[in-house]
């Protein structure tokens, strides 16, 4: 942790967290104001808790901004496979998110055996796997195994999509 000295001027993105907290706090309060009171007694009304949470988030946002302005920086998480010496590899993250979004968008239409395989293939490709044939075989096998595993083992029928009736 101590060898990870933060560069000055890098802190601007940290304010984003503060802004997010502020926005969520405001949303909570605005939403709470739309609630209707019904026979509330004393201190506790339908609005109390969300207002309180909203206030707390705004307070957090302010305190965090103060902390950042005074040079406080969040400590990036380390891990066995994490190398923090370089910057973030946004291309990989974007490809992963795209592979995941493809699955979310088409799972009901195309079915898990297809979208799951595409997601696995896409993710492993994004992470640097270039053994296309082997990867394709593993992807298809995994998605079929999990489909049957969930169906036979857990009684959960994942969407079969285009392959409905074949599986």
């Amino acid at each position, binding site marked *: 942790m101590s060898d990870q000295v933060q560069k000055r001027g890098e802190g601007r993105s940290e304010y984003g967290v503060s802004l997010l907290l502020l926005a969520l706090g405001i949303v909570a309060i605005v939403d709470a104001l739309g609630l209707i009171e019904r026979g509330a007694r004393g201190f506790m009304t339908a609005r109390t808790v969300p207002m309180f*949470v909203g206030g707390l988030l705004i307070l957090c946002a302010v305190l965090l901004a103060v902390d950042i302005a005074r040079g406080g920086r969040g400590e990036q998480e380390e891990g066995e496979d994490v190398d923090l010496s370089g910057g973030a590899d*946004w291309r990989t993250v974007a490809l992963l998110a795209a592979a995941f979004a493809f699955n*979310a968008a088409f799972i009901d239409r195309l079915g898990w055996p297809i979208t799951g395989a595409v997601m696995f293939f896409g993710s492993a490709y994004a992470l640097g796997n270039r053994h296309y044939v082997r990867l394709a075989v593993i992807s298809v096998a995994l998605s079929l195994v999990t489909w049957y595993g969930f169906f036979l083992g857990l009684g959960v029928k994942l969407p079969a999509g285009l392959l409905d009736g074949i599986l």
Partner: protein
Amino acid sequence: MDGLNALLDGMSAALTPMNLLYAFFGVLLGTAIGVLPGIGPAMAIALLLPLTYTLPVEQAIIMFAGLYYGGMYGGSTTSILLNTPGESASVMTAIEGNKMAKAGRGAAALSTAAIGSFVAGTIATFCLALLAPQVVKVAIQLGDPDYLAVMLFAFVAVTTVLGSSKIRGFASLGLGVWIGLIGIDPTSGQQRLTFGIDQLSDGIDVVVVAVAVFAMGEALWIAAHLRRAPARITPIKGRWMTREDLSRSWKPWLRGTVIGFPFGAIPAGGAEIPTFLSYISERKLSKKPEEFGHGAIEGVAGPEATNNASAAGSLVPLLTLGIPTTATAAVMILAFQTYGIQPGPRLFQDQGPLVWTLIASLLIGNAMLLLLNLPMAGLWAKLLLIPRPYLYAGILMFASLGAYAANGSPFDLWLLLFIGGLGFAMRRFGLPVVPLIVGLILAPRAEVFMRRALQISDGHLSGLVNTTFSKVVYVLIALLIVAPFIWSRVRGRRTPPEGPVGPSSPTTGADDARVHANTEGA
């Protein structure tokens, strides 16, 4: 002694071939997952939650218990052989353990870690069996204001104890509580923060959030910073355990148990502080303090025992009060809840046999782990060679399966991606994830307790503090918040400001010291 008798009954229930099989499966999987980089026991249980749809409750809980203990055994193997600890709890083990491995004494480091975990885990599980019924006796008499106070204590403890920045801890807690607001207000029946989206009116499934922050967020974060160079695994060399190793290890094991269990048992979360305390006390008590920093066996034996003892200790608040204080405990609560079981004082009455089977299977799993780990450490280490693209693509795949299977709706997959992005940002900006999940699980229940307490007092705020118990807890909360400030003030006056401290805001005394221990050890 009712605890021990109940434990014996639990033992006979856990010893059926089927249950043993699930326990074995759990510890096997737990060890593998602990060894694998990037996956911790919390993520593993989160990804396995779909199993709860068909497995009988007893067997699922037995398996998760095995996973819980197994993850820690595997984690120590990784930190000794790789020197890049995955969890904060094994940071201390890595310091001396990896030095030992590099000096050709890897086998001794692995065995003192495994045997120490076994000794500490066994003693601490017996402590759990003895202590839990006593806590239940007190807890069963607690009223709504008392519970509210205990939950607030857990909030403050989890946020101030974990991580180095308190404000970031509270921010994370706030995010969790905010997500918990989504859905229908339990008393007035109105929709909160649903923005007119149908799928949100029941609230966001906690399982989806857990999978998102633990699995998605982690996978995305690692993907963005993937270490391209192959991991350097230190080969296991040397003799497993000599007479000298044993005589230097057994006291640290016992001391570690004594330090770890109470820290886990108070709802203050995390093995970070007790393992650190164990490390410095072993360094102080050692006859050969000069060996510390160069591979002292006491520095592996103590923290590893502490780690396991505190894991057993954290089951006390989990089972008796329903309060999770670690990531894994939080996910365990979700497993209970999917069966409609709410951990808490009544758990021991309503589900007595289940609880005691769980505790008994922890003992059994612990013994299995010793047999599984000692002779096979080399084999487990091979798991570290798994190609990373497959590993993380697989995590994404199982994350989406878990989230989709919960409700069978693609909407949850989009939520998973969205909240996974939040998890990514939290890792980038140093927000700990445990407060978020604890806030999400406990806040809705805290709200119910608060409303009930206020209904009884007819809306007067005094209804929240009208018991001695709640007053004591609020004083403790105040102390928890104020003490570190006073502590650092006092330290600041006594010693001139020392070297570069961590980049974050007010650090506690322990955090300061930890920075030093790390630099000295490295």
